[in-house]
C-alpha cells in the first residue's frame, strides 16, 4: 500500500499553492540555454576546422614546398638547356666564367663580362715599362724585347684586323680571353675610365698600321691583371674568337715568323683551355 501513491495526501499536497521561481531566474536560464545552443551551432563548423585544420594545413605546406622545388628545378633545367651545347667540361675549359670571383684573385676573370679600362693612347703605352709586366705578373707581349721595338707598338696596328675578325667569330664566352689580348694597351688601363672613353680611344689604338698580330693576341691574364675595365669592344671581340680561331691566329703568327708571340699565345691558350687538345702542328 505504502508503495503506491497516497492519493489523499497527494490531493492535499497538490492543493498547496505552488511556489514559482522568479521571472528573472526563468529568463537567466532560458538565455543561457539559447546562448549555448547558438554556440554549439557555431562549434559544429569549428569542430570541422579543428578536426581537419591541421591535416589540411600540412598537406598545403607539403604541396607548396613541392611546387616551389619543382619550379626551381625546372628553372635550373631550363637554364641548362639554354646554355651552349658544348659539354660542361669543355665549356669550363673554353669558356670564361661569367663573373669574376673575388675569393680567387688569381683565377682568370671573364673578360667577356668584366669591362676593362679603356685603352690609353699609344704614347702612354710606349712610355710604360717595355717589359710589360702587369700588376698580376702575367705575361705581356714580349715582342718588343727581342725585336727592339716597343712592347705594344707592333701590336697596336693589328687591332682593326683583329677586331674585324673577332666580330665575325662565334660569340662564345671562349672568345673572351683571347679577345682581351687584343687590347695590349688596356693592360695598364686605369679602372676609372668609362666605356665611351674606351671606344674613343680604341680607334686611336688602331691607327698605327704596322702592328703585328701578336699585339692583338695579348693574353687575357695581362688584361685582367691590369685590374681595370675592359672596353666593351674588347669584350665583344674576346667573346667572339673561338679557340679554333685563336689557333688559326697563332698559326698565322707562326707563318709570319713571330715565334715569341706564338709561344706566348700558346701559353695563354693553354691557360685558358687546359683541356683543349692542341693540334699537332702547334704542340
Amino acid at each position, binding site marked *: 500500500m*505504502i*508503495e503506491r*501513491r*497516497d492519493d*489523499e*495526501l*497527494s490531493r*492535499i*499536497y*497538490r*492543493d*498547496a*499553492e*505552488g*511556489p*514559482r*521561481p*522568479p521571472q528573472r*531566474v*526563468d529568463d*537567466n*536560464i*532560458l538565455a*543561457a*540555454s*539559447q546562448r*549555448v*545552443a*547558438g554556440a*554549439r*551551432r557555431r562549434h*559544429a563548423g569549428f569542430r570541422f576546422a579543428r578536426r581537419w585544420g591541421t591535416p589540411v594545413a600540412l598537406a598545403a605546406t607539403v604541396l607548396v614546398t613541392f611546387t616551389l622545388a619543382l619550379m626551381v628545378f625546372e628553372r635550373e633545367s631550363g637554364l641548362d638547356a639554354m646554355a651552349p651545347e658544348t659539354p660542361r667540361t669543355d665549356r669550363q675549359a673554353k669558356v670564361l666564367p661569367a663573373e669574376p670571383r673575388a675569393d680567387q684573385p688569381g683565377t682568370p676573370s671573364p673578360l667577356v663580362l668584366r669591362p676593362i679600362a679603356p685603352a690609353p693612347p699609344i704614347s702612354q703605352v710606349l712610355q710604360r715599362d717595355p717589359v710589360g709586366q702587369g700588376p698580376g705578373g702575367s705575361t705581356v707581349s714580349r715582342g718588343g724585347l727581342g725585336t727592339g721595338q716597343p712592347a705594344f707598338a707592333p701590336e697596336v696596328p693589328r687591332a682593326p684586323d683583329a677586331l674585324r675578325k673577332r666580330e665575325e667569330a662565334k660569340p662564345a664566352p671562349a672568345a673572351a680571353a683571347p679577345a682581351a689580348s687584343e687590347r695590349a694597351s688596356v693592360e695598364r688601363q686605369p679602372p676609372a675610365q668609362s666605356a665611351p672613353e674606351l671606344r674613343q680611344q680604341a680607334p686611336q689604338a688602331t691607327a698605327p698600321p704596322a702592328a703585328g698580330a701578336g699585339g692583338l693576341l695579348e693574353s687575357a691574364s695581362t688584361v685582367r691583371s691590369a685590374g681595370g675595365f675592359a672596353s666593351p669592344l674588347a669584350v665583344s671581340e674576346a667573346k667572339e674568337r673561338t679557340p679554333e680561331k685563336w689557333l688559326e691566329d697563332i698559326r698565322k703568327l707562326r707563318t709570319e715568323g713571330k715565334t715569341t708571340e706564338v709561344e706566348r699565345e700558346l701559353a695563354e691558350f693553354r691557360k685558358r683551355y687546359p683541356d683543349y687538345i692542341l693540334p699537332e702542328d702547334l704542340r
Partner: protein
Amino acid sequence: MRSEASDEELMLRYGKGDAGAFEALYRRHRLPLYRFLLRQVGNAESAEELFQDLWMRVVNSRGRYEVRAKFTSWVYAIAHNRLMDFYRANGRASFVSHEESESVLEDLPAGEIAADLRLDRKRAVERLLAALGELPDAQREAFLLQQESELSIEEIAAATEVSPETAKSRLRYAVAKLRASLGKKS
C-alpha cells in the same frame, strides 16, 4: 498520453542545438523541480540558487546526454546531488537518513486525516507542509520525489543512490508521519 515530444527527445534535440526544445523541457519541469528544492531547503533564496544551478548543469550536459533512463530520473538525481552539496556547504548535519525501525511505524496513529481538515483544505495544506518540514531529510526527499516527479520506487532509489528497499522504507515512514500529523485534531 502526450502527443508532444517526450522529455528524452527534447533533450536530445537540445543537444543538437534546438533551443526551443530546451524551453519546452524547462516549462514542463520547472515548477515541480522548484518546489522539490524549496521544500527541502526551506528558503526561497537558497532554492533559487539551487534551481538555477541545477538547470545550468542540465544545459552543460546537453552534449553528453544519453537516454539511459528517464529524463526525470536523471534530472532529479542531479537535484539530489546538488542538495547534498548544499547541505555539506552549509554545515548542515549529515543528511539524516537514519532508518527508523518498523516499531516506529507501529507506534504511529492510524493515519486517518482529521475530518475538519478534509473540509478545510487550506488548513490541511498548512498542516501538511508543516509536517513535511519536520520530516527527516531523507524521508522528506523520498516523499517529494514521489509527489513531484512521479518516479517509481526503483527510480527514486536510483536518484537517491539507495536501494529500492531503503527508498520504500523512507517513503513509508514519510507518509505515515504525515498522515499522523494530519490525523491529529488541530
